[in-house]
């Protein structure tokens, strides 16, 4: 009964002559949380951005819920998709960025309801009602009319999560969601993510928060220099790492 939400097959990505991803294979089942660990420059953020085709890949295939991302395969021939088709694919994949990337000219609620109304053609009243519920769910029930510049980093990131959830995604991608936050604001954001995982959301999280990885992740993947070094349960990878490289990394961050 398991459904593969993400199926990445030998994904390669180069920037110029620099090969950032050298053949990544990994799968995420529906409802699972996968945490990506690795030193900076290991390619984990790039890989995340390849999943929703913010970056094009140079080799391999990425399937999200069975759909090939960014391309259409006809027999042996691969066709680039039209931008509108790629946009349609992205609607089902939520993404949360390290630097929030909220729309600064819109209030918290307007940020959340912009895409449901403009992209999904939801009625303004329905989108607003859902948007209010989502903001309440991330603990910002009293901040609807605040602009991003009036919110703390942690609050902004929770608005960003609500904004992504408003599209009712089947997969959520988190790109170092707490790295730009003051330490005392990290907890609120992680709590929201923890609740989301409990409710069965499929998530891929790039993070350095080991506590979160240990508690929430079903699978932890350690990447280095564009390759998956080690993958397994949090106990296997975090507590009993098999590879020297993983051990060195864990020692450096703990």
């Amino acid at each position, binding site marked *: 009964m398991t459904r593969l939400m993400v199926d990445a097959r030998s994904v390669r990505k180069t920037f110029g002559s620099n090969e950032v991803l050298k053949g990544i294979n990994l799968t995420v089942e529906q409802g699972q949380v996968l945490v990506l660990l690795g030193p900076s420059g290991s390619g984990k953020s790039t890989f995340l951005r390849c999943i929703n085709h913010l970056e094009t890949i140079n080799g391999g295939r990425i399937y999200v819920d069975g759909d090939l991302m960014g391309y259409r395969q006809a027999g042996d021939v691969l066709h680039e998709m039209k*931008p509108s088709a790629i946009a349609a694919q992205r609607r089902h994949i939520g993404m949360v960025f390290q630097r929030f990337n909220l729309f600064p000219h819109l209030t918290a609620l307007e940020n959340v309801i912009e895409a449901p109304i403009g992209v999904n053609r939801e009625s303004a009243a329905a989108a607003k009602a859902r948007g209010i519920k989502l903001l309440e769910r991330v603990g910002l029930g009293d901040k609807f009319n605040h602009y991003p510049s009036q919110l703390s980093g942690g609050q902004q990131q929770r608005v960003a999560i609500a904004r992504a959830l408003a599209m009712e995604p089947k997969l959520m991608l988190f790109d170092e969601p707490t790295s730009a936050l003051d330490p005392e604001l990290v907890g609120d954001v992680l709590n929201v993510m923890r609740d989301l995982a409990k409710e069965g959301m499929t998530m891929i999280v790039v993070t350095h928060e080991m506590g979160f990885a240990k508690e929430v992740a079903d699978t932890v993947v350690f990447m280095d220099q564009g390759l998956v070094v080690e993958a397994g349960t949090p106990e296997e990878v975090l507590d009993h790492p098999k590879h020297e490289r993983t051990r060195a990394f864990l020692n450096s961050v703990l």
Partner: protein
Amino acid sequence: MNDDDVVAKPLRHPWRWVSGVLLIAALSGIVYSLWSSPSINHNIISKYLFDPKILQGAVLTVVITVVSMLIATILAVILAVMRLSPNPLLKLVSSAFVGFFRGTPLLLQIVFWGYLGIIYPTLTIGIPFTDVVFVHGQTSMLLPSLAAGIIALSLNEAAYAAEIVRAGILSVDGGQKEAAASLGMSGGYTLRRIILPQAMRVIIPPMGNEFISMLKSTALLEVVAVLELYTQATMISAQNLAQVELLVVAGFWYLVMTTILSIPQRQLEKKYGRGFNVSGTTGGRMFGFGNRIKMPRGGTAA
């Protein structure tokens, strides 16, 4: 009042007073010399200040300015987007357009459009290689000097405004585009709803400049006999030979119009500054700015 309140005599600035008095003296000297000059006839100035022809000219000047500016702004957005598109052909066309219209004098362009009839005595608009013709006639009839003037001003202004719009678009953080893409927004939607509203903040101040510059450039349409303010003034002075007096009249109205047209800029800046002009990133502290931003008390929705 506390014991440790700062009670001090304010620092005196005698030179400010001295220079202020000197400035007023110099200004009144200039005004007096103009006023008392025997070559300026004040009766003529007051007679023509509200002359119907002058007022008609002023109205036409505003109409030409607003229409040309509207056309130019629309063209500018299209040119800027073309320039920033990945399509090399669109890029080239946009750069060539900007290069051409910025690279030749406005006066030359006005004369060119005004005398288009010399190059093309008749104009035909239709579908090439078919018998379908939408418009056909004498160029001078189809393109009266007013239309020619508006075309000249719009195209020239579009070239400058395109660079302003492009700078505005480039000023928006790249993360905005990515966030919009991740939400499944199309490129056009992102431009309209996310990028341009933020770019406007950067675009409006220089466009205000362009607007005022355009208002004054309309005077150049005198060479193709468009009956705007400056043409009307020169036509009157050609008859009564009171050139200076009518320049004063025209100058007065140009000043009035540029002053009035500067007001909407402030309103626009306020509108597109929303979300940016609030201070403080870690709390609700803000300076009263406009009435659009209200701090909610409790959980009331927008």
